[in-house]
């Protein structure tokens, strides 16, 4: 599910995806889990000296079905997106939106504090903010 194309019926898009994955294989990746682009939900990760912030673009997901876990320095976001089923006499002209179960994994830096987590779902974006350990925060050292 990580590599689901937006246009699964489009052969050219599939070839394009394969090509991208091949190219990624030749590049140095900082993460053993790779960069699953094209997955659902799309993710942005950023940080400040106080926190690590993960934004998962998961529109139309019931927040109650979202499962966020931190275990051994790995953050997992899982859930299911159910779409309205078209009626029997309906014709589907375009079908690009993701449907079904999803699961994405992010490796966290060593200095995060798994007990200081805050998760919010707003406008279809799940924001997870994880505090960094006090001891890891920058301190000013006075020079005598």
């Amino acid at each position, binding site marked *: 599910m990580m590599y689901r194309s937006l246009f699964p019926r489009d052969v050219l898009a599939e070839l394009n995806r394969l090509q991208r994955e091949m190219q990624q294989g030749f590049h140095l990746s900082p993460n053993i889990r790779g960069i699953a682009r094209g997955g659902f939900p799309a993710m942005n990760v950023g*940080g400040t000296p106080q926190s690590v912030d993960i934004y998962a673009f998961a529109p139309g997901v019931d927040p109650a079905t979202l499962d966020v876990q931190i275990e051994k320095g790995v953050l997992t976001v899982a859930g299911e997106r159910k779409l309205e089923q078209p009626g029997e006499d309906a014709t589907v002209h375009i079908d690009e939106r993701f449907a079904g179960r999803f699961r994405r994994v992010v490796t966290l830096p060593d200095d995060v504090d798994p007990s200081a987590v805050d998760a919010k779902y707003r406008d279809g974006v799940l924001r997870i903010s994880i505090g960094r350990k006090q001891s890891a925060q920058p301190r000013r050292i006075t020079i005598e």
Partner: protein
Amino acid sequence: MSDNSPVTKQATGEEAALLPPVDVIEDASGITLYADLAGVPKDKLHLQVEADTLTIEGEIDLEMPEGIEASHSEVSVSRYRRVFTLSKELDATRVGAEFKNGVLKLSIPKAEHAQPRKVEIKVV
């Protein structure tokens, strides 16, 4: 990284924009369009019907801590834009729009008499 974005970008001749994924379903009463516009608050979603062109535009507005530095970004453009051409039998004056949790649902009924008109759609 632009060609690796999960959402394809559409060259509009203006600034770069994300092409939101959509589902378009037609039944006897009309067309229903769903568009994924994650991160767009209601006041930054703009819908417009002009002649037979439907334009969906939205600006992503995320709450971000001060001084944040991105380490990995799959959504690197903060604007969505997608344009559709409506066919004549659709009544663009009676488009219904719902926007919830980043998903836009547009209901475009079929017209009894096709009459081209310019309309501004306000999201309720």
